[in-house]
């Protein structure tokens, strides 16, 4: 079982977390026309990087969403930070 550092609670077991999506994928402005292809890309396509991957996770016990960078091959955790904060 992996351990992730919640930026608010510290190091906790993996089972307290849920994956919540790829980081850095803003919702397109739907008040403007968007092609079916672009919309499908937003809905269904992920980079699914091999190696360093930026993801949004939620710590279910404090309900805070945050960004985690981790290595999808080695399971190394490269860092976490609160949403909308640029890590130092």
């Amino acid at each position, binding site marked *: 079982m992996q351990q992730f550092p919640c930026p608010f609670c510290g190091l906790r077991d993996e089972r307290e977390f849920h994956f919540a999506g790829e980081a850095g994928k803003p*919702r397109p402005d739907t008040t403007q026309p968007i092609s079916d292809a672009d*919309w499908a890309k937003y809905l269904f396509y992920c980079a699914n990087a091999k190696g360093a991957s930026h993801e949004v996770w939620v710590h279910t016990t404090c309900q805070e969403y945050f960004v985690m960078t981790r290595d999808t091959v080695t399971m*190394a955790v490269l860092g976490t930070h609160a949403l909308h904060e640029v890590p130092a």
Partner: protein
Amino acid sequence: MSTRLATSGRLIDRSKQVAFTFNGKRFTGHAGDTLASALLANDQMLMGRSFKYHRPRGVVASGAEEPNALVNLGEGVTHEPNARATTTELFEGLKATSQNHWPSLEFDVGAINQKFARFLPAGFYYKMFIHPRPFWKHIYEPFIRHSAGLGKAPDAETRDPDTYEHFYAHVDVLVVGGGVAGLQAALTAGQSGLKVLLIEQTAFWGGRTPVDGGEIDGKSAEDWITEAVAALEVMPNVTLRTRCMGSGVYDHGYVLGYERLTDHAPEADGPRHRLWRIRTKQVVTATGAIERPLSFSGNDIPGVMLASAVRDYVVDYGVSIGDRTVVVTNNDDAYRTALTLKKAGLSVPAILDVRVHVHAPPLVAEAKAAGIRVLEGMGIAKVVGGQRVKGVAVCSQAGEGAMVEEIACDCVAMSGGWSPVVHLWSHCGGKLLWDEEHAFFRPDASRAPTGADGLPFVTTAGTANGHLHLNDALQDAHSAGKIALERAGGKAEAGAVVPQAQGPDEAAMTPVWLMPQGAGYELKMKAWLDYQNDVKVSDVQLAAREGYESVEHTKRYTTLGMATDQGKLSNINGLATLSNALGEAIPQVGTTTFRPPYTPISMGAIAGEARGEIFQPIRKTPIHAWHEKNGAAFEPVGHWRRPYCFPKDGESKHDAVMREVKNTRESLGLLDASTLGKIIVKGPDAGRFLDMMYTNMMSTLKPGKCRYGLMCSENGFLMDDGVVARIDEDTFLCHTTTGGAEHIHGHMEDWLQCEWWDWKVYTANVTEEYAQIAVVGPHARDLLEALGGMDVSKDALAFMEWKDGELAGIPARAYRISFSGELSYEIAVPASFGQAFWDLCMQVGAQWNITPYGTECLHIMRAEKGFIMIGDETDGTVIPQDLGLNWAISKKKEDFLGKRAQERSHMTDPTRWKLVGLLTEDKSVLPDGAYAIKDGRNANNQRNTQGRVTSTYHSPMLERGIAMGLVLDGPERMGEIIHFMKDDGETLVAAKIVSPVFYDPEGEKQNV
């Protein structure tokens, strides 16, 4: 015969007799015996039958790797199948029975299978049982079920009376394995002051070394072990546990340990097993090595054993396997067995060594000096005997098996070399390298498992790291301990003195994968690789000929290594056989994956204390106790238990439900709706936010009003529904479905935190803060007026309005909403008033025959009105437009979650199935989920379909079956008859397409 020797047996206490039974027969052993050693002491060599051919099998090994001696332990509630006799410590009153035979262990009908062995080759099951298809259900499956499986499953009706527990441990260095290497690694790590945990799967320390001999720092190995344990015991930072197996290594330094506390002493108090959930910075695996069998004809006949096991039984338990033992080997270590037997006064007619020695290495020289005949370059052509070894036919290893001599014996001690136990190293991604010199895989230190920081967190030590010589193992263990402690952030003790061991040098081994090298088919089909699953050399070669190249595929095709021992003995021999057959090098073929647990662990240990009521805690409404007292029949809804109905004495559930519907519609019903989700959404941007969350416009809702809303995912699919009430300018209360409260709250937070993080909105899930009680039926208003305190008249509280006040002195919020079509109020009171309010309703409502009702009545009433239910009409592929809910989708809003997705071509496809009502021609109830068939067949030769049933009930008001369903062009086909297929796949039921609103279509009942 196997028997107890007059002397020796370092682990047994000859002064203590222990009585036990095997297959009902009474035996006696000594304290300290294992079940295997005690049976052997009583000449009970035959311990089981093999899986496929039911061949008679005796014990092969002396430890966790044992494939044959699996027994049923205990009976009734304590029955446990597949226990290894070699790791079962004997206790007074132990009851064991053998497995996989009928009618008896000695005479078994299934053994006839071996006569057909020629016709049961690798992949037999796959080849035989594929065709014809109809045979599968009635002939093949019962046959396989009858003949498969070793142990008997415990009786499903019994409950395990023992207790189990989980134990959390946090340490710096975990050392797995309490042999000499594990002890040394723990000493080195412990001296740094770091927190160290040392676990050993057996009941004693020191591993194999006390049997194998050697000196450490001038002391006997046993003395050194005693001193090492004593030194560790006084270190306050070190914890030691025996009978505790390292079961699995997982990500980020997580390790499971399996401690067997009372298996050897069933009368003792406390939990039977304890699952250690260990989080450690570093792991040292000092898990030793396992001896490999040799592949020769008849190597499974009882009396053929691993050479190390033969000497274990003599030294540890004072048990001889036979009077005359032939040793067959490709390495020096097996000579220790010959010397041990000789010293015990037993006869060793010959050592067959496949190697030819120019200069005899020390152990060989010692054997020769002891007068033992050593036949070099020789092996076994075949073993003579059936249920016991009677002798061996000796042949040249280089030949095809021509017998040069037959030697009478009753035990064969074989050694094909040693394989490091690399399981724990490999569980979490540690890689292996092939060691040509010793013909084994050992851990590749440069490719260790890595942790959260990307750095290695497992080190391996001693024989587990491929160091078979005692001193090499000790030095390696010290260095592993040092690496681990430094990686864990500790500092090694300066000037630590590493103990030095003395033992004989050993000559190189010679890999032998088949004996003799040129053995023909007749010999190979009796040369077992996997004893438990009956896989032979010939089977693996056949698989290779049939095109199996991957070791993973070959494993599954032949079942090699798939038995309960997970191939501990067979893995390398099978792999080498496959490599040779494919003409490839062993490292190219690679190994199968090592997966936890190392040996099977009990289900009880995995469950721990999570059983019975606390397996999964149940959520209860404030009125739950009343429901229980009043005979509710419960059903699970999410983690809640909700009353399905309230049957009276002697009443069936169906009759109760029908009564509840009628009473409610004709007079007055009461529903505990507390489980409905309640989420407060508050803030200046709350309206704007809810406009995004719901398909309808919520920002225009006036305080004091309610609106039914639909919630879709960004993919456009309907995910939840419920009534939204605007409390004040900044505050909304959103009702969700019972199952939706948590995930809808999470869904809101996801969007608020990740996307619209600058909007000023706060959400809170207040589901459990309120008891919510639905007062439903023509007398609903009468009841509330009788309770008094709030004006609930038509003018004061119109449909889809709410207001705060008091009812019978209890603070209450009354919502005038209806999920039944009746005059209906949902009253929310603080949870602590829930029971009091319910009681008042029941008392005062008695004059109108008030009837508590359950979820089934609720479902029928909503279906009679054509109201959809999330999870019935929706399944994650349904959009609101499919359900005719276009009226609830705002056309004015620029955007909401799901809007753009609902414009995608598949979502606007006119052939999407749409919601209609269905009335069977014969008034019967349609089967739930039944499909409406259409002419013709699809590409898979299945009947074409044109719709399916989503909700179906017997309506007591209409006295007939009613249903809702999604049907192709449904709304345009009113009055048409279509046919639904019943579960039997044959019978068709005719149903007419109608409006889904079956009852009171004008809505007059609630408009009062």
